[in-house]
C-alpha cells in the first residue's frame, strides 16, 4: 500500500492562551488534492502555519507524519527542504532582494539537501525561464525585488511561480484565491494543475467553491471550530456554495 504524504492524528494546537485546533485527523496520499474549507476563524490558516512550523503556535496534542518523518520535530527550513511548501496568504516583501536571486538561493538549498550539485546563475536562469513559460507568467517578475510593490494578484501568482520552481511534494495553498480577479484566478489554478502529478499532493485552503472549479479536488473537508466536521467529494463544495456553512456548524454543535 502506498505511504501517505501527510498523516495528521488528533492534532491540537493554539496560541498562548487559546486553543484553535481541537483534534484534526487528515490523511493525504500522493496524487491527491484536498480542499479545506470553512468559515472565518475556523482554524484553516492555523493548520497551515503549524504544518509549516511557524513560531508562536504551540502543539498540545497529536502527531503529524510527513513522508514517514515526524514533521513536528523538524525546523521550518528542513520541512521546506523535505518538500513541504506553503503558498502564503499574505506573502511578505523583502525589499532590495531580487526575486531570481532569492529563488536561486532557495532552489540550491534544496539541491544541496538532496546532495545534488548547485546550479550556477546561467543554468538557473534557463531553468526558471522555462517555468515562467509553463505558467504563462510575466518574466519581469523575475527582475523585481521579492514581492516589493507587487499587486495582491502578483504576489499570489509569484507564490505559485515559486512553487513551480521548487516542485514540492506537498503544497499547502493558503487562500491563494483571495484577492484574485477571475483571469488571475484561472492563471493561478492552471499553474497548480500543471504541477499536479502522481507523486505530489496539494492541500488547498479556500473560502469559496470558485477556485475548485479549476483545481478539482479529490476530497473536500469542512473545518469548524478547529475540527473537521464534514468530508466529502467535490459535490460537497457545491453544496456549501449553495447552503453556506451554517447547517454544518449547527449540526456539529448539536452532535
Amino acid at each position: 500500500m502506498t505511504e501517505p504524504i501527510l498523516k495528521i492524528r488528533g492534532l491540537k494546537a493554539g496560541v498562548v492562551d487559546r486553543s484553535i485546533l481541537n483534534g484534526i485527523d487528515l490523511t493525504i496520499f500522493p496524487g491527491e488534492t484536498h480542499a479545506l474549507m470553512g468559515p472565518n476563524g475556523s482554524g484553516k490558516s492555523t493548520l497551515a502555519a503549524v504544518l509549516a512550523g511557524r513560531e508562536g503556535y504551540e502543539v498540545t496534542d497529536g502527531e503529524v507524519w510527513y513522508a514517514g518523518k515526524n514533521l513536528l520535530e523538524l525546523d521550518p527550513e528542513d520541512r521546506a527542504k523535505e518538500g513541504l511548501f506553503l503558498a502564503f496568504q499574505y506573502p511578505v516583501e523583502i525589499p532590495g532582494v531580487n526575486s531570481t536571486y532569492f529563488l536561486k538561493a532557495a532552489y540550491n538549498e534544496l539541491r544541496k539537501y538532496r546532495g545534488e550539485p548547485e546550479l550556477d546563475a546561467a543554468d538557473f536562469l534557463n531553468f526558471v525561464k522555462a517555468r515562467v513559460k509553463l505558467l504563462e507568467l510575466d518574466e519581469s517578475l523575475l527582475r523585481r525585488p521579492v514581492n516589493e510593490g507587487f499587486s495582491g494578484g502578483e504576489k499570489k501568482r509569484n507564490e505559485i511561480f515559486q512553487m513551480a520552481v521548487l516542485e514540492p511534494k506537498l503544497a499547502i495553498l493558503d487562500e491563494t484565491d483571495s484577492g484574485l480577479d477571475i483571469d488571475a484566478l484561472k492563471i493561478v489554478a492552471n499553474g497548480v494543475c500543471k504541477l499536479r502529478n502522481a507523486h505530489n499532493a496539494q492541500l488547498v485552503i479556500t473560502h469559496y467553491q470558485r477556485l475548485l472549479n479549476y483545481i478539482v479536488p479529490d476530497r473536500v473537508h469542512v473545518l469548524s471550530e478547529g475540527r473537521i466536521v464534514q468530508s466529502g467529494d467535490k459535490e460537497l463544495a457545491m453544496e456549501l456554495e449553495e447552503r453556506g456553512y451554517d447547517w454544518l456548524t449547527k449540526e456539529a454543535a448539536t452532535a
Partner: protein
Amino acid sequence: MSTSTDNIARLVQGEYKYGFVTDIEMDSAPPGLNESTIRLISAKKKEPEWLLNWRLDAYRHWLNMCLPQWAKVHYPPISFQEIIYYSAPQKRNDGPKSLTEIDPKLLETYEKLGIPLRERERLAGVAVDAVFDSVSVGTTFREELAKKGILFCSFSDAVRDYPDLVRRYLGTVVPPSDNFYAALNAAVFSDGSFCYIPKGVRCPMELSTYFRINTGKSGQFERTLLIADDGASVSYLEGCTAPMRDENQLHAAVVELIALNDAQIKYSTVQNWYPGDEEGKGGIYNFVTKRGHCRGRNSKISWTQVETGSAITWKYPGCVLQGDNSVGEFYSVAVTNHFQQADTGTKMIHLGKNTHSTIVSKGIAAGHGQNTYRGLVKVMPGASHARNFSQCDSLLIGDQCGAHTFPYIEVKNTTAQVEHEASTSKIGEDQIFYCNQRGISTQDAVSMIVNGFCKEVFRELPMEFAVEAQKLLGISLEGSVG
C-alpha cells in the same frame, strides 16, 4: 548561490582577518606631542619652511581647542601624550626609488590584504598608493598616469615635486582650525595621498589608497588632497585595515576634495578598521574629517562609504556646493555590531544657484551597537532653487542595539526644496519565516535582507568594491541573530 555559500563559511569563521601584525623595523618618534615632535616630523620629511610653520600654527591653535562633545559616542579620555605621532618602516638608504626597492615584507603585507601593489598585477587596473602607519610606501602606475598629466603620489612627494599646487590647495577645504581632530592632523600629519587631474582629463583607471595601521600605540594621521581641474573626472577608492590590539588606536585623517568647473569626483571608502572584540575591548577610534568643495560650475562630488569597522566612527563627509548647478551626493552604509559606536552622516552646504544634493544613509545596528545618523543640510541665502533629498533608513537586529537620527535642516532661501525621509525597521520575524519556509536558514536570510536593505548604496560602489562590501557586511554581522 556559491557566493552565498562562501558567505556562510565566512560567517561561521567570522573573525577579523586583517588582524595580523607585520614584523618590520620601524623608525618611530617617542610618544608625546610638543613643538619639537612637529619639528622632528617636518625635518624627517625634509619639508619647506612654509609647511613647518603651517603645522606649528595648527598645533598652537589645537592647544586652545576643546574635544567635540556633541557626538553620541562614549569613550574614556584619550591621552594625547601617549600616542606615537610618527612611525615609518625603516629605510635602508634614502628611501625606495621604485617599487622593486620596497621591503619585501611590506609587499607581503599588502598582498595579504589583497592589494595589487606590484606592477605585475597591472591587469587589476587600479593605481594604488599604499600608506603604512605614517608613510606612503609605494604608488603604482605613476608613470602611466603621468603621461596623461595626472599626478598621483604620496603627499610627501607632492610637497617636494609640486609645492605650488600643494600650497595653493592645502587646507582650503578643511582649514587647520576646522575642528579639534582636523587641527591635530594638520599639526602632525605624516603622509597621505595627493592627486591632481588636469583640465579636461578623465582619469582612465580607479585610483586607490590603502591605509594600514601597524605599530602599536601609534596614531595614523594621513591627509589626502585631491584636485579635479576644469572638466576633469576621477573615481577614487579608499580601504582601511589594522591589526587586532587590546588598546584603542587613534586614526584622525583629513580628506580634501576640490572640483573645479565641470569636474567630477567620486570618492568611495570601505572602512574596515579593527572594531574591537566582542566585549568592546580595543579597536580603532576613527575620527575623520572629509569634505569636498564643488568650487566650479556644474561640478559634482559623490561620497560613497561602507563603514563596518572601528570601535568608534565619527565622520561626516560633506560637500560645499559653491559653484552654480553643482551636485553633492552622499551614500552611506554604517554597521555597528557588538559594542561598536558610529556617529556618522554628512553636511551639504548649498551656496550656489540650482545646487542639488542627495543623501542616502543606511544604518544597521546589531548586538549592543549604537548607530547614529547626523546630517546637516544648509541652504544659504544665495542658493536659489537649491534642492536636497535625504533618505535615512535604520535597520535593527536584536533588542540591545540602538539607531538614532539627527537631521539638521537650515534653509535661508525661500525657493529651496528640501525633502527628508526616514524609516526605522526591524528585520521582521515574518520575513525570516518566509525565507525559512523556502529552505533558507535564518543566518542566510539575515544576510540577504541586510544586503537588500543596502542595495541603493552598494549600487554606487565600483564593481570590485561592491563585492567586498557585501562580504564585509556578512562578516561584521556574524552571530547577530539566533
